[in-house]
């Protein structure tokens, strides 16, 4: 109980700083999310159409994903055009988002029952109509699972960007560690978690909105 009250007290006393960090954190995450979705959904669709590239692209995504984040952030800083700050941080996080997003789009499109596609084709849907009217709508549940993983992951990983100059919630945690202040560490972690849960919740609402009720029962089966 004592810990909770002292964490709360810390948050109240430092509200303006926490607000600033939260704003920065959120804007970084949202920037990364927007770019990642545009880029990786598109790549995912491309490799599901041109299957022969699928293994190498997904393999690359896996390799990039296992690079320790702190080293990738650091590496980008050494590139003059990127340097310290937002550009390097955003780029690194976009790269980490590749694995869950590309893979889920590919898997989602590929998981569509081939007989549904055959029936669509047999009734005269063009390849583009099959993609937009069958494959994409049917892939949403799998794609959203990937998006939600990516969102939570980016939110957590963004804390590390504090080491390359981002003034976000990672800084709170970092300072907490150097000063041996549990309140600071916990406050930072709690706010990060709240952001992650909130974004995940929003994505859940969005998923419900775009996924047809005809498919929803399936995910409930699992």
């Amino acid at each position, binding site marked *: 109980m004592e810990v909770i009250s002292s964490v709360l007290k810390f948050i109240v006393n430092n509200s303006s700083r926490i607000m600033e960090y939260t704003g920065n954190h959120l804007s970084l995450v949202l920037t990364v999310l927007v770019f990642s979705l545009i880029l990786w959904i598109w790549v995912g669709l491309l490799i599901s159409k041109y299957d022969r590239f699928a293994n190498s692209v997904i393999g690359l995504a896996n390799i990039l994903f296992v690079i320790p984040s702190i080293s990738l952030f650091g590496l980008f800083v050494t590139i003059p055009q990127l340097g310290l700050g937002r550009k390097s941080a955003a780029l690194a996080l976009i790269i980490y988002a590749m694995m869950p997003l590309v893979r889920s789009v590919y898997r989602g499109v590929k998981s569509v029952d081939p007989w549904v596609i055959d029936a669509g084709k*047999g009734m*005269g849907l063009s390849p583009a109509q099959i993609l937009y009217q069958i494959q994409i709508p049917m892939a949403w549940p799998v794609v959203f699972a990937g998006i939600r993983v990516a969102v939570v992951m980016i939110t957590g990983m963004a804390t590390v960007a504090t080491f390359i100059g981002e003034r976000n919630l990672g800084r709170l945690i970092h300072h907490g560690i150097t000063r041996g202040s549990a309140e600071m560490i916990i406050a930072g972690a709690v706010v990060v978690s709240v952001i992650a849960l909130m974004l995940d919740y929003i994505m859940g609402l969005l998923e419900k909105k775009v996924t047809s009720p*005809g498919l929803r029962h399936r995910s409930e089966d699992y």
Partner: protein
Amino acid sequence: MLEKLIQLHQIKKVFPNTNIPAVDEITFSIEKGNICVFVGPSGCGKTTILRMINRLVEPTSGNIFIDGENVLNVDSDELRRRIGYVIQQIGLLPHRTIEQNVGLVPRLLKWPEAKITQRVVELLEIVGLDPAESAKKYPYQLSGGQMQRVGVARALAADPPIMLMDEPFGAVDPIVRGRLQDEFLRLQQEVKKTICFVTHDINEAIKMGDYIVVMNGGKLVQQGTPMEVLSNPVNHFVKDLIGDDRGVKLLDLTRAESLMTAVTESPAAANDCFCFIDAIQPVKMALEVMMKNDSDMVGIRRGKNVVGTLSWADIKKHIHKISGDQE
């Protein structure tokens, strides 16, 4: 002379990385308004033939004509919108309602929405589904039999003159299958589509077919009416396919109309009939009605018109013809 709506000329298909043709130089034609059934074991090429008619598979050589037009000269998507397509797996779009599934092709053809709505209601009624109850449902909320009805309704939606049906009733239990077959035959009396029907089940072939094409190993083994195939199998393969109970099959599976004496041949006989059956009912029904009414003859009706007569002597003659060479 009936019009030949679909003509296949020396159609051959060799799939990539295989040496043996899946379909080997097959030539035949299908008359307008007929159900032509392709029957044979799996891998005999029957499905491949079907899929070549709407260009889901492109032939290696040979030509297919629909209404005199070479299908290779038609845009494949446009061609398919003019041909109904029903498959065993049904392939309803799970994310669309029944209404949207049935209206799919009309929507592709850019019909006005009001016309589509009206057509969907009409079709659901035709296939025996209650539009008020089922239109807004999703496929997962239906039974297998209901889904297959929706599959048929969807194929009929834009009123295509031709339907391709690949084991359409194969996934439902035998009782539902029998019912769907009967309903479909009744429906066909009204809509008079030209239908290519694929099955591995000889009983279904005899029951559904106006014309049967027996296939094996990519080759056409025998073609003819169910009567011709039943009474005169060309070789052991066809004989084995039919089985030993050809006489009974005839009673059970042959439609009364295929054994009847047409009213045009003997108009007087029709006047003597006091009991009647439907033209598409099996011959055994004729026997049943004859026994019940203590009559030697039944009249055959198509709708309200008497189109022919079927007598005990007619049936006996055919059974003898069919079973004769077995004794």
